[in-house]
């Protein structure tokens, strides 16, 4: 079994702000991390590898420095990694990103049976690239999954987290599956793992290697356009009270507000 795990380098979202003067992103000095949900996808892949044998390849699309998270994936145990990097990929929305990642998965040898994603990335929060890749690959899609088990014949079971409960799902590979947090806790990369990945070259594929159509990549291939970005409206006019001295007054203030909102009579 060959498992591709798609990971994304994201800014630590807690620290991203808008420059109030220019209305542009201030990303300088913001630390980059591996998208937390993708860590669960990687862990899921490594567990399947440990239990039933598989080759695990980590993929990311991004600038050359995104290779850092591929090294980390390999240090944790991935067997190989590929960076998808090309100036032509810049400005891609989820459509164009899905196209490039699917092209790369089609190129991997042996044929990929299972593609794992985290349920969404914490910078864009769209949850659209996993489903998009499933569409380009024509692999069936399963979302919000955990506790994935794969049998020798390629049949799998998983639990999926729906809005009103959990569904136990049976399916058959190939598949694209996005995973949620409740899958196993991600392992740490042992020092020996880091040592082993040191020096090894991570291949970088661009438009040419992927035989991708330039017009479908990056901003050019993206149906959506960002018209503007701006800082979210600040909540103003909030009332502050000190409830330490007179808790009863605080309680009264809450009840008054609840009543104004029609929550209590």
């Amino acid at each position, binding site marked *: 079994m060959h498992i591709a795990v798609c990971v994304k380098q994201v800014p630590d979202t807690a620290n991203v702000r808008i420059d109030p003067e220019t209305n542009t992103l201030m990303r300088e000095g913001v630390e980059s991390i591996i998208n937390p949900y993708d860590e669960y996808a990687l862990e899921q892949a490594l567990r399947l590898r440990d239990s039933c044998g598989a080759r695990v390849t980590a993929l990311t699309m991004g600038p050359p420095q995104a290779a850092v998270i591929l090294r980390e994936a390999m240090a944790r145990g991935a067997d190989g990694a590929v960076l998808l990097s090309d100036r032509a990929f810049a400005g891609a929305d989820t459509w164009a990103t899905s196209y490039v990642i699917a092209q790369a998965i089609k190129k991997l040898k042996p044929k990929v049976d299972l593609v794992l994603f985290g349920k969404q990335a914490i910078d864009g929060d769209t949850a659209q690239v996993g489903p998009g890749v499933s569409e380009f690959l024509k692999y069936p899609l399963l979302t919000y999954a955990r506790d994935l088990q794969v049998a020798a014949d390629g049949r799998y079971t998983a639990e*999926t987290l729906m809005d009103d409960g959990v569904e136990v799902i049976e399916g058959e590979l190939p598949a694209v599956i996005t995973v949620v947090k409740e899958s196993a806790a991600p392992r740490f990369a042992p020092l020996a793992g880091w040592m082993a990945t040191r020096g090894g070259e991570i291949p970088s594929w661009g438009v040419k290697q992927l035989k991708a159509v330039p017009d479908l990549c990056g901003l050019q291939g993206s149906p959506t356009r960002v018209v503007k970005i701006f800082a979210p409206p600040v909540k103003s006019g909030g009332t502050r009270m000190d409830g330490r001295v007179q808790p009863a007054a605080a309680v009264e203030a809450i009840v008054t507000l609840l009543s104004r909102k029609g929550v209590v009579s």
Partner: protein
Amino acid sequence: MSDAPVSINPDLCRGCKKCVSACPFGVLYMDGKLVMLKADECRGCLACIQSCPFQAITAVSSDEIDHERLREFSGVWVFAEQQRGKVREVAYELLATGRRLADERGCELAAVVLGHEIGHTAAHLIAAGADKVILADDPKLAEYEANVYTDALHQLIAGHKPEVVLAGATAIGRAFFAKVAVRCYAGLTADCTALSIDSETTLLHQTRPAFGGNIMATIMTPNHRPQMATVRPHVFKMNPPDPGRVGETLLEALDLAPAVTRITRTIPSASSINIAEAEIVVAGGRGLKKAENLECLRRLADRLGGVVGVSRACVDAGWISAAHQVGQTGKTVSPKVYLAFGISGAIQHLEGMRGAETIIAVNNDPTAPIFDVADLGIVGDLMDILPALADAVDARARN
């Protein structure tokens, strides 16, 4: 029906099949030694043109034709998600917004229902503002399955060509809409908090938060159709139903492949609640100090007809199941009122609840970030406030 966006010159085609593998949509196929095009399904991405070594494929394109192609798309659609025959509330909220958009565009508003034995939903959807209800009633659609739903909605879109298609940003809507958008080569914007028609371009302006809510972005889809968007529950208000409204119901028979995944078992949430759709969330965090104090939260939540939410700390401590967790690794809620007791308001938590209409926070730390988003912030010991508040609400209810 316009002509296909590309034309193939049979005199130049050598049958090398390069274009067949380049086409991301699989609409080119070999007929003997010649390449053929399923004209109706071509999205005009022009990938084949770039792949052809013999210049056998050319674009049938001009600004006029491209413009004409976009103009074929008309109408606003709302995907009316239903489960076991019951349409989810978010669909009615979207119909209210869809009504406004359709009126601005001067076009029709349609609700689309996928499922089995769903005819009874039509009257409700028309009362909520739909001019037309499109019912795809098929046993294969009885349960949600992403791949079958994708086939179904794609077939409907290809047949009717709506200009705008909206869905609730639910576990179902978010997943299969992304597949449909790729198949249609459409633009899709997730989790919109505002939708409007730009008066100059007549395009749908879609505004959404990104980077954990630290940034808002307005997005549009200039040259692809439909323009697709998802919206979280409770972001928009529904209109009161108007039973006097009349509308048309259209039954669509689709040609669907069987499901490739199968549900073997369903485990409803232990608490049988879905905090993502709750109107009132009474939430607690680390400041509760012990599991027993959750009882006070439950009591207040019961009195208010709300549900209990918690920050990650409570789940990690094993006090309550993850189904109640609000935040980046839990659920996103957008209730009418969010009460936060002993929650400091880490960014990961704020991301999950900043969409609430009114936020009331009680915390003993005057510098807690939760106060920055609160409409009413009370510095104090939550155990001084919480039980007394439940009593006060009780007293109100009795009067």
